[in-house]
Structure formats: structure tokens, C-alpha cells
């Protein structure tokens, strides 16, 4: 398995897109910090970067990469190699490349400019989000053979998680405005890793007061150790469950 990971990583690095992505992240992070004198504002800009660009690049790059390596997968499958180790190698290769890009592009400058709980939380969430969207891409590409359809599905997934989900929640909140929905909202936020990430980062920023009563409830829940442990567990589940499901599908896939 180690050797396959090595070949996949070499292939990704040769591809140069991940290097360009790293430089892009680094340029944005550096310019945000050098333009703003108030680092809080800079952090808010970075938050949007982490919540929009990172998942988009992760999911699209991974999907296209997996479709393009179909020949490589086919070559390996006729060799005495377990299907499981091929699929997990792809997972490790893609997620470590994208995580590394994020750590170099955002994590490292954050560490240099502003060592705070917010920076730490943002780096952690960025890593989680990178990996989760790699896994979602793997799930989408194992479901359909058609490349255009697969990429379409991943774009829809991204739109759903970063835009539609919030719209749906707002709609629900307005429809059921007469009921106390603050507590169920904590549960609902777990259904979207991007929302969960956003809440966890915002709570560290001390602007949760702007979120009103819901913000207070969130602070009450996510501020505690149990709440934090639970949200980290949920993030792990977001990686693990789609990964295991895609692995199951890959084991029975006809090539």
C-alpha cells in the first residue's frame, strides 16, 4: 500500500495543480494580513476562503483526478493487490496532498501572523473540510462511470453544502418561527460539515454575540468540552462514513 501511495503522490505533485493551489492560498492569506491592519477582519475574509474555495478545489480536483486515473486503477486491479488498498491509497494520496497544500498555504502563515485559538481552529477545520470533500468526491466518482455526470454531482454537492443548506435552514426557521428551534439547530448544524466548521470558528472569534439568542445557545453547547468532543467526533464521522460506503461500492464495482 505504501508504494501505491508513493506513486499517487508523485503523480499528484507532477500534476502541478496542487502546487498552484498552494501558491494561490498562500498569496491570499499573505495579502489579507498585509492589507488589513485589524487581524479580526482578516480572519473573517479567510473564513470565507476556507468555507468556499477549499471545499470546491478539494472536491473538483479529487473527482477529476479519480476519473483520470481509471486506467491506473485498472492496471493495478489486474495485479495481486487488494481492491481495498488501492482505494485507501487513493484516499491517503489525495487527502494528504490537499491537506499539505492547505497547511502550507493557510496554516503556516496563520501560525506566523497570529497565534490564537481562532487560528488553530481555522487550521483544524480547513484540514477536516479538505479531507471530507476528498471523500465526497470519491463517493461521487464511484457511483457513476460517466465523468461529466460525476463532476456534475460533485458541483451539486458543493452548492448544496455551501449555499443551499443554509437557505433551507433559513426557510425552516421562518416557517417554524413560533417554535423554540434554537436547540434543534445545534443538531441540524451537524448535518453540514461546513456549517459546523463555521460555527466552531466563529465562536472562537468572540463575535458570537452578533448571532443573537441562537449564538448564545451555540456558545453554551459548543463552548463546553463535551460539545467540542462531540463536534470533532461528528467531523470524523463525516470522513469515515462516506469513505467506508465508497469503499464498499468500489469493492463490487465492475471495471
Amino acid at each position, binding site marked *: 500500500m505504501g*508504494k501505491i501511495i508513493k506513486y499517487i503522490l508523485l503523480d499528484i505533485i507532477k500534476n502541478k495543480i496542487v502546487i498552484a493551489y498552494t501558491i494561490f492560498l498562500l498569496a491570499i492569506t499573505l495579502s489579507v494580513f498585509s492589507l488589513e491592519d485589524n487581524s479580526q477582519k482578516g480572519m473573517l475574509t479567510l473564513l470565507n476562503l476556507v468555507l468556499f474555495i477549499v471545499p470546491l478545489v478539494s472536491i473538483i480536483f479529487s473527482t477529476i483526478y479519480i476519473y483520470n486515473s481509471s486506467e491506473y486503477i485498472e492496471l493495478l486491479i489486474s*495485479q495481486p493487490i487488494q481492491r481495498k488498498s488501492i482505494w485507501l491509497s487513493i484516499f491517503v494520496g489525495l487527502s494528504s496532498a490537499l491537506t499539505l497544500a492547505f497547511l502550507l498555504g493557510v496554516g503556516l502563515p496563520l501560525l506566523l501572523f497570529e497565534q490564537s485559538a481562532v487560528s488553530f481552529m481555522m487550521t483544524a477545520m480547513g484540514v477536516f473540510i479538505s479531507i471530507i470533500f476528498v471523500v465526497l468526491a470519491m463517493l461521487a466518482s464511484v457511483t457513476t462511470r460517466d465523468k461529466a455526470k460525476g463532476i456534475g454531482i460533485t458541483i451539486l454537492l458543493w452548492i448544496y453544502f455551501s449555499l443551499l443548506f443554509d437557505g433551507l435552514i433559513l426557510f425552516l426557521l421562518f416557517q417554524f418561527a413560533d417554535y423554540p428551534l434554537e436547540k434543534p439547530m445545534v443538531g441540524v448544524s451537524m448535518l453540514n460539515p461546513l456549517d459546523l466548521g463555521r460555527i466552531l470558528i466563529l465562536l472562537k472569534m468572540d463575535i458570537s454575540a452578533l448571532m443573537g439568542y441562537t449564538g448564545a445557545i451555540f456558545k453554551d453547547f459548543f463552548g463546553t468540552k463535551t460539545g467540542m468532543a462531540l463536534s470533532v467526533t461528528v467531523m470524523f464521522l463525516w470522513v469515515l462514513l462516506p469513505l467506508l460506503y465508497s469503499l464498499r461500492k468500489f469493492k463490487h464495482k465492475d471495471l
Partner: protein
Amino acid sequence: MIEVTNITKKFGKLQVLKGISAKCEAAQCIALIGPNGCGKTTLIKNILGMVVPDSGTITVLGTDISRGWKYRSAIGYMPQIGKYPENMKIGQVIEMLMDIRRMEQKTDEDLINAFALPQLYHKRMGTLSGGTMQKVSAAIAFLFKPQILILDEPTAGLDPVASEILKEKIITEKENGKLFIITSHILSELDELVSRVIYMHDGNILFNNTIEALKADTGETKLSRAIAHFMSKN
């Protein structure tokens, strides 16, 4: 060496294999023939574990293939259309396979040298002609000295010199006690190689016997004529 029992496979609504059973022993050279789309490649891919059958069992060297993957080290496979990572060079592909399967020390590089592949090692897979790709596939199939060799349309696209080299190799290895399964539409070529014929039609095996029996049955002396006779009868 290979035993296939009641294999069925559906692709969507299309029933490709309708309960195939067959047994292949060592030191045989089996021709798997039949019209286009009769399920030959699907059957081969089932044996290789690239396609998972809907029902039925396949055992290779005594182990059920649904429970293992190590059996694949005993099989060399030459696909009909070789698919390789386009931006890798020939040398890199061969080196990578040798690296991944390093525990198997002894390699057979006869075909690599006979096809003069080392001179082409710097060429990218994406730029290769169909024939060169076939040469690479053949060399890889024989590389790890497998006991079973499955060749899907081996000589299609090869020039006469290369296909003669490949045939020589098949004959020597057959005498070493290896099992060959070859699919081809060029029956005249199979005549000198095969000892047994499996004829498939529409997802079923219509005929599975030695070449002598086929010739005796039909009263023909050439495989191509015997098959033509057999096909017109059915």
C-alpha cells in the same frame, strides 16, 4: 487450475453470461472463441476479479477468488485494449510494477528484450501506437512468470515479426506446463497453438472439447473450417 461454476452476470438489463461452467487444467492451451459480444471478455474479467459475478463461484488454484486476491499473482493478463496511465513512460510502468511486486524476485524479461522495448522506455504511454501498446501488454503479462496466462486478442495489432515472437513464446511456455487461455478471431493462427476449444455464444458455452474431437466431429482438418461448420450447424 481454474474452475468456473454457474457464473451469471448482468450489465443493466443485458444478461451477458447465462450460467457458465468450465474447468481448465495445467499445460493446456485453450481457445476461447465466439462472435462479438458473446461474453468472452466478461468471462475473463470475472476470472481476474475485475468484474464481480452476480452468482456462481470461480476457483483459481483451489481458492475461491471472492475470498482472496493473492491468486492474481499466478495470472498474467494481456488485455484486448491495454489501458495505461497516459503520462507515464513505458519504463516507468514496468519499473512501477516490478517495484510493487518486489517480493517475486525472478522475472522473465524475454519478451521485453525480444520486442526491443528498452529502446522505447522513454516514450509516454499516451503517445504509443496500438501495436507498441500490445507489445507492452504482452511483456507485462509474461513478466512475473505466472502459471496461468490469459491473453485477450493477443496478436491483433501486432506486426508479423512481433506476433511470431509472441507465438514462439506461447509454445515454449506451454511446454513448461502453463495454462493458456487465448481469445482470438484469427482462427488460422490458433490452429498451431491450441489444444482445446471453448466456443461461446450469447452468454452460453456451446462447445468445450479438445481440438481433435472438434475436428473429428465435423470431419474437417482446419480449425477455421471446423468452427465454420459447427456454427452453421447451430
